[in-house]
């Protein structure tokens, strides 16, 4: 079986295979060739997007006003400019989408805008805590600039990425770039205040976190490679102890790349990213091969890896200890390397309770220097309460599910894999960060997509959403007819 056979219509064939047991699906697959979308006659929903976008701009502006009133008893002076700026950027993005991605999903841009806007408000609010926050610096203007750059990159992707499938060509270049990006921070000295993690490239006052970009670029590689090798991986395998093990020449290269990135991350003490890349890899392998055994395999390996890393690195051990006993750092003689942050975060969440203290009226600066970055969710939890947290989680759930829906709707296997990869990367990242902040899992130190302070993160996530929207646009675009039914069956026969 050659790779040529698998390239273009693998998607349709797989749908046919899946639909086999379900008569209704089979019927619709005959009609459309795809069970999950019906492009013809579907409204493009751009007006819905515009309305949601207006809401996504107005809400943070009101939140901004709320903070000003709560903290200074007056409306913030920059409110109008901020609102107009946000509105203008969102409007430009929207208008360009009307031209360049008219059939794209209508929810993603508003959700990203809303999250980014709320994040900005919270960062500005924590800036105002001023000298109370340890090593405080005004981050909101920077974040605003990075958000602007992020939206600019979003627009660039919108305009210049004509078809997401071109990225397929860069499969191996992506691999190389991702590895370089991941490895680069190892050559820059770690600072004490970075809490052991070496995940930044610094040039003077300027620093980027290449891991955020590598996330997208590595997904390009995984998607490109797996698309080509998926059948070889799925079918040309030997059964061993109930598991289907693929041939080494198919699996080998990807395992090597993946292990390499994990090793780099472990070396750089970037646990969150390690977990993210691991999960991303397993999910994409599973989706590409449709073999459940990969999940079992992945789980076994992750448990093994986790135990191995936890028992060898003191850094990890410290974090697990802090997770098991978040209040240990408050003891008269705290253990080495203990941090108050998780305990502070839990106290912030608890103090917020169900309805929260109100924007600008909490004291989440007690979480200390990470209040605006890793722990911004703790700040939200205190000031917006459980109610606000649920809303934020819902926004992420929606964003992720729209991405996965795009994957289902995508017509090409590369697009499917790419969309699955990007969406599940976002899901894993949200889980790892929020899980750490709420004490569900040990803290690993990543940024909450869009919400948290951090230039690389904001820019990379805007790019991620732009790519998802492009895939979504091509999936929902009625102009491209699905492959005719005869060809579909021919493909299956081959």
């Amino acid at each position: 079986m050659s790779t040529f056979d698998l390239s273009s219509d693998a998607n349709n064939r797989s749908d046919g295979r899946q639909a086999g047991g379900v008569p209704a699906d089979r019927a619709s697959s005959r009609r459309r060739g795809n069970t999950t979308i019906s492009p013809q006659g579907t409204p493009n929903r751009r007006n819905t997007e515009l309305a949601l976008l207006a809401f996504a701009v107005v809400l943070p502006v009101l939140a901004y006003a709320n903070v000003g009133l709560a903290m200074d008893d007056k409306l913030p002076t920059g409110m109008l400019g901020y609102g107009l700026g946000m509105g203008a950027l969102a409007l430009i993005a929207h208008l360009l989408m009307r031209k360049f991605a008219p059939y794209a999903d209508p929810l993603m841009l508003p959700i990203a805008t809303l999250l980014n806007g709320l994040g900005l408000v919270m960062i500005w609010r924590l800036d105002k805590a001023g000298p109370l926050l340890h090593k405080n610096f005004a981050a909101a203007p920077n974040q605003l600039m990075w958000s602007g750059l992020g939206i600019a990159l979003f627009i660039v992707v919108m305009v210049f990425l004509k078809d997401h499938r071109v990225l397929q060509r860069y499969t191996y270049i992506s691999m190389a770039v991702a590895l370089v990006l991941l490895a680069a921070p190892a050559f820059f000295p770690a600072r004490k205040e970075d809490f052991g993690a070496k995940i930044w490239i610094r040039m003077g006052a300027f620093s980027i976190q290449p891991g955020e970009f590598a996330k997208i670029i590595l997904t390009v590689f995984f998607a490109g490679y797996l698309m080509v090798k998926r059948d070889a991986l799925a079918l040309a395998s030997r059964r061993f102890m109930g598991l289907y093990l693929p041939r080494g020449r198919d699996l080998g290269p990807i395992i090597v790349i993946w292990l390499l990135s994990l090793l780099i991350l472990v070396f750089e003490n970037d646990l969150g990213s390690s977990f993210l890349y691991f999960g991303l890899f397993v999910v994409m392998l599973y989706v590409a091969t449709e073999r459940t055994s990969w999940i079992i395999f992945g789980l076994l390996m992750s448990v093994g890896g986790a135990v191995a890393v936890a028992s060898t690195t003191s850094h990890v051990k410290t974090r697990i200890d802090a997770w098991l006993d978040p209040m240990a750092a408050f003891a008269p003689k705290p253990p080495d390397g203990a941090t108050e942050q998780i305990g502070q975060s839990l106290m912030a969440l608890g103090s917020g309770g169900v309805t929260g203290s109100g924007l600008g009226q909490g004291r989440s600066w007690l979480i200390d220097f990470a209040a605006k970055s890793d722990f911004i969710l703790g700040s939200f939890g205190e000031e917006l309460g459980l109610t606000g947290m649920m809303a934020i989680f819902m926004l992420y759930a929606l964003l992720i599910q729209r991405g996965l829906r795009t994957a289902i709707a995508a017509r090409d296997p590369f697009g499917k894999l790419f969309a699955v990869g990007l969406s599940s990367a976002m899901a894993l990242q949200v889980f790892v960060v929020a899980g750490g902040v709420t004490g569900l899992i040990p803290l690993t130190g990543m940024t909450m997509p869009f919400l948290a302070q951090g230039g690389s993160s904001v820019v990379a996530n805007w790019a991620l959403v732009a790519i998802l929207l492009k895939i979504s646009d091509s999936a929902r675009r009625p102009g491209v007819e699905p492959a005719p039914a005869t060809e579909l069956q021919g493909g299956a026969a081959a």
Partner: protein
Amino acid sequence: MNKPIRRVSIFCLVLILALMVRTNWVQGVQAEAWATNKNNKRQVYDRYAHPRGNIIVDGQPVTQSAFVNGLRYKYKRSWVDGPMYAPVTGYSSQAFGASQLEQLEDGILSGSDDRLFFRNTLDMLTGEPKKGGDVVTTINAKAQKAAFEGLGNKKGAVVALDPRTGAILSLVSTPSYDPGVFAGNEPADSKAWTDLNADPNKPMLNRALRETYPPGSTFKLVTAAAAFENGLYQNIDDTTDTPDPYILPGTKTELKNESEFEKCANATLKSGMDQSCNTVYGKLGADLGKDKMRAQAEKFGFNSTVDTPIRSEKSVFPTGSTPDGTALDSIGQHDTRATPLQMAMVSAAIANNGSLMQPYLVQQERSASLTAISQHSEKQFSQPISPATAAKLQEMMVSVVENGTGKNARIPGLTVGGKTGTAQHGEDNAGLPFAWFTSYAKTADGRSVAVAVVVEDGSNNRDGISGGRLAAPIAKSVMQAVLGK
């Protein structure tokens, strides 16, 4: 590939769901525990985020809440006449927590009390700034001042009670401290706190409630009460069968009196009280036995804490003494210990015809809008002695002031009864004795006050110390202040 994608999306939903469940757990179920965790600094910031209510004495606040608009704390507590009122108010410090009324009434003062919930909600809706409620004390400003100035730079304590109600009219402990010097959270506050804690004179000790002293001869009132209550003697003029010196039962140790000129051999109860004969009351206690003595002492409040609401230390009458020990216990030496409040309660019970009222310090709690939230209702602590016994003891106490060791407490126009005490203490009684005076005064129209005074190390030599000389004048000025003579 759609089937695995659907499964992946379910997996992603499960991840988000796990976060939601966890957040509900932390912010819903555990919220209160995290919010009130002792390491959660929000509680102390909240306490100083709005003006704190005041502690009121005679209609005037003795506390203030100044708007300092600090970065973390918006308000800072300060006190009017801090050292004088410190044993009543306690402190409320941003850095070092709170004590006494500031701590016990924190709910009202900070406005977080559940009983203020309705008021607070209303204020929140109408946009009124939050403000704590007030605590109205029973303290009489003039009596407090008289006691504080009477003690001056001596070490000691004064407690004055209204015998009919139990209201605490004055509560003074010296040397004292100004709670305002460490109310903030600055280096200067830390230094003041450290210095006060390191001070060998223990200025932050509330001697009126928290320090127990050997009560010395003032305890003879309790012994006399036990004698009448148990029928050992009927009248104050009954002569006792007491040798001088008295050999402590079961030993060869002689119990002597302070002075050889005292006529204590076979003295009457009254005369023994007037001259404060150790032999008479030591033998009396030994004759009654430790159980009867202890039962009587406990009815007066010994061996139990008293919440005023500031908790007073337990005064002690020992349970397991040998007969010679009981003899010494009965004259307020050996293992007997009493707080100034306890001895004031003894006087108050006698003055109130045998009924001991529960001592209390808080008359009323009220909201910031002056609505009363709670009002103290008087209640009896116990009935330690019958009215007949009380009348006999009153007569003896009046006699002490008229004819005996308490002459310095005489006030023209008032019926004053008292009992002096000069308590030995220290290893082999090496320390300078404590001077005691417990007393009461009554006006013709029935108003009354009971006062206990203790002065520690009031003089440089033993001869200079006696309850009558050091403590009685202070009690006198407090009684005058209360009854207006």
